[in-house]
């Protein structure tokens, strides 16, 4: 019963926040924090070393209830280590979003927190659902409140951005819906049972052409979310226009649902098709890394720059997922978490610049260090984390990913490493243009407020911990990734051949 | 006395219809447009009557009667509208009344 509670609590809290938010501005905030903490408590209870009895190895919790039995649709939720990690990330970043919006959001406070909680609930659902229909349901649920977050509390071109976001994700989601239905029908043709149950749909026999088409349906949906070049173009606009909390949620968690989907659904459901797709996926990953970096170098809008850097970083995740070995997959998972923290933090910092100086334009900024050395030091820290300095979380992710990728395709790994050089260029340019230089009378900002400071400190600790001792994360994720073990073993002979040819 | 071929009446109807349509399209004054519509309706009625005459059935004239009713109703509302428009706006130019523009 704990799994549905994780989803229901934020929704109930949203209701409460909405009802009581008219009169007292702090009421929705407190309710939101309370609900998130309650969720965290439940999650802490679920984070135990011994899995519950009666579950398949690797799975930590399970819930099942009929929904539309005639169509084989049920309310099925399952949690494994990967979901658990991402749920922790979700709760932490949502909490951070609430904390940093405490002062920044003053309009429609109640509805803001309703949207925040509803998005969170949708995301939690996405990470837990193991019925494909239910998964799609949550997948769509998280979009709508996110749309409102951008469209109501965003910046100058918020409506344009929100619509773009919605169209991209909705359009790709429909592709996935088609693929889900097609998969269910294919499954019925071969077994006679009409079901959306993830575990039953695994190992559905199908022709290679069908498999490729369905795989692409899923892949594109997740690729848009991840985002993979050339489906990335909603992201810079949306990130730039979203309010700080929205950017944090988007960058920190929403993008991860794409990666999660690839790991959880695309590859296990269509291993052969996905495997045949590997060269293209690797190329897309590398393209994303380099293209995102090139674009990030050229930006003068801080938020846009960070957004393009996300495109670059998530290219590593795609590489890791399609490298077909545990190292790279672990790297991808760590990169997901580290990126969530570091980019989330950068968005928070940029957001506070925007909030105080009312500009994100690097051409008007500079010399912030003079007025706000602590703020600048923190900014510098996360910029450096983002360029992948060893000892911090992002490096572990990138290193493992590229190491795993090297086994499949050394050129892809080398090009990915070139992306690291470009990451240095854009991160340092960001630092130089925003923080360094002579004192700028138009850009004097005070230090961070108390809530910001605590949030930042927690994020710094998290990213350092991830960098120097990632083992807990690795241990937690490894059973989920071992699910893919047999696949990579199956893939191994082929890949071995490929890598033989590739290696000099 | 040679009987008239209804086919010829149909041809006449076609010509009258065309003329009426030309009137609707060419004229900008609402009064003239209404008149042209009358011509078109009349042409339609003629076609019905000719058809009825061809088969010796009453249905053609029944239809004409209905068309007539329609024309009467339409014209009464249309003229009332014209009067209303005239008092609101001192022109009967149909091109000016394009508030419904999308």
């Amino acid at each position, binding site marked *: 019963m704990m799994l549905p509670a994780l989803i229901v609590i934020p929704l109930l809290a949203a209701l409460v926040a909405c009802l009581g938010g008219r009169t007292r501005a702090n009421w929705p905030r407190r309710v939101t924090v309370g609900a998130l903490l309650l969720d965290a408590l439940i999650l802490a209870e679920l984070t135990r070393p011994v899995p519950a009895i009666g579950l398949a190895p690797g799975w930590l919790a399970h819930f099942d209830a009929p929904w539309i039995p005639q169509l084989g649709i049920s309310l099925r939720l399952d949690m494994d280590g990967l979901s658990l990690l991402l749920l922790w990330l979700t709760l932490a970043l949502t909490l951070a979003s609430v904390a940093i919006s405490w002062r920044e959001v003053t309009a429609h406070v109640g509805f803001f927190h309703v949207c925040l909680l509803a998005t969170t609930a949708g995301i939690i659902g996405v990470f837990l659902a193991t019925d494909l229909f239910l998964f799609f349901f949550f997948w769509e649920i998280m979009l709508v409140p996110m749309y409102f977050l951008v469209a109501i509390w965003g910046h100058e071109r918020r409506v344009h951005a929100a619509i773009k976001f919605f169209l991209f994700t909705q359009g790709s989601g429909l592709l996935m819906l088609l693929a889900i239905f097609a998969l269910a029908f294919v499954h019925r043709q071969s077994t006679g049972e009409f079901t959306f149950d993830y575990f039953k749909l695994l190992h559905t026999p199908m022709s290679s052409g069908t498999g490729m088409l369905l795989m692409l349906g899923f892949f594109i949906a997740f690729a848009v979310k991840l985002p993979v070049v050339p489906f990335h173009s909603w992201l810079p606009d949306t990130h730039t226009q979203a309010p700080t909390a929205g950017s944090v949620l988007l960058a920190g968690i929403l993008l991860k649902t794409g990666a999660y989907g690839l790991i959880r659904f695309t590859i296990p459901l269509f291993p052969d098709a996905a495997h045949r797709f590997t060269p293209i996926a690797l190329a897309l990953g590398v393209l994303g890394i380099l293209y995102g970096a090139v674009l990030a170098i050229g930006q003068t809008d801080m938020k846009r720059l960070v957004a393009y850097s996300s495109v670059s970083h998530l290219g590593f995740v795609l590489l890791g997922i399609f490298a077909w070995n545990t190292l790279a997959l672990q790297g991808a998972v760590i990169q997901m978490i580290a990126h969530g923290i570091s980019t989330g933090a950068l968005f928070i910092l940029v957001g506070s610049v925007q909030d105080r100086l009312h500009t994100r334009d690097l051409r008007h900024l500079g010399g912030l260090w003079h007025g706000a050395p602590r703020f600048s030091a923190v900014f510098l820290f996360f910029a450096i984390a983002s360029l992948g300095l060893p000892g911090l979380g992002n490096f572990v992710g990138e290193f493992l990913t590229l190491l795993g990728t090297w086994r499949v395709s050394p050129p892809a790994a080398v090009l990915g490493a070139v992306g690291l050089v470009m990451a240095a260029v854009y991160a340092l340019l960001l630092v130089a243009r925003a923080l360094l230089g002579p004192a700028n009378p138009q850009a004097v900002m005070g230090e961070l407020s108390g809530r910001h400071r605590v949030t930042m400190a927690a994020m710094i600790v998290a990213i350092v911990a991830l960098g120097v001792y990632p083992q807990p994360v690795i241990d937690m994720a490894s059973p989920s990734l071992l699910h893919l073990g047999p696949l990579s073993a199956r893939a191994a002979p082929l890949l071995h051949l490929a890598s033989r040819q590739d290696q000099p | 006395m040679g009987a008239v*071929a209804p086919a010829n*009446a149909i041809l006449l109807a076609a010509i009258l219809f065309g003329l009426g349509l030309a009137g609707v399209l060419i004229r900008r004054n609402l009064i003239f447009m209404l008149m042209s519509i009358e011509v078109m309706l009349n042409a339609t009625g003629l076609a019905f009557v*000719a058809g009825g005459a061809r088969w010796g059935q009453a249905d053609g004239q029944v239809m004409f009667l209905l068309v007539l009713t329609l024309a009467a109703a339409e014209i009464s509302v249309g003229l009332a509208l014209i009067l209303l428009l005239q008092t609101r706006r001192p022109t009967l130019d149909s091109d000016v009344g394009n508030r419904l523009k999308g």
Partner: protein
Amino acid sequence: MNALFTLAAIVAVISTTMVVTRTVAVHALLYLVVSLLAVATVFFTLGAAFAAALEVIIYAGAIMILFVFVVMMLNLDRDDADRENTWLTPRVWAGPALLSAVLAGELLYAGIAGHGTIVAAREVGPVQVGLALFGPYLLAVELASLLLLAGLISAYHLGRDSGRGG
């Protein structure tokens, strides 16, 4: 009979052309009455005496009277006629006229090519029409009466507004 038909048809076409091209509303209206009377004659030659009578009474009589009233109430004068002239340049009417001509041509073509043998018209008397009206078409008649009622009410409503001057 054929000669009468031909004559009536020619009158109808000419007067209708005049309706479309006149600049003074009353002139056009008179031509329209002529056209309607010509069509009534055509009805007669087709053996539809009842329709011919209705055409004269209701169309040429009642409806045209409505028009006359309205045109009088509109106070159209010389200026309006001049304006009509300025609106009737070849540039304006060439296109629509061509379009209408094409449509009429198509209809004519369909009318000529459509049938094989030419059959004479057969007379249909008022009795037949009356039986049909209150037999199989009873519902249609009732609907038509409702339509007229609706027209009456709306015309009254609109006219009342216009009477107050909007």
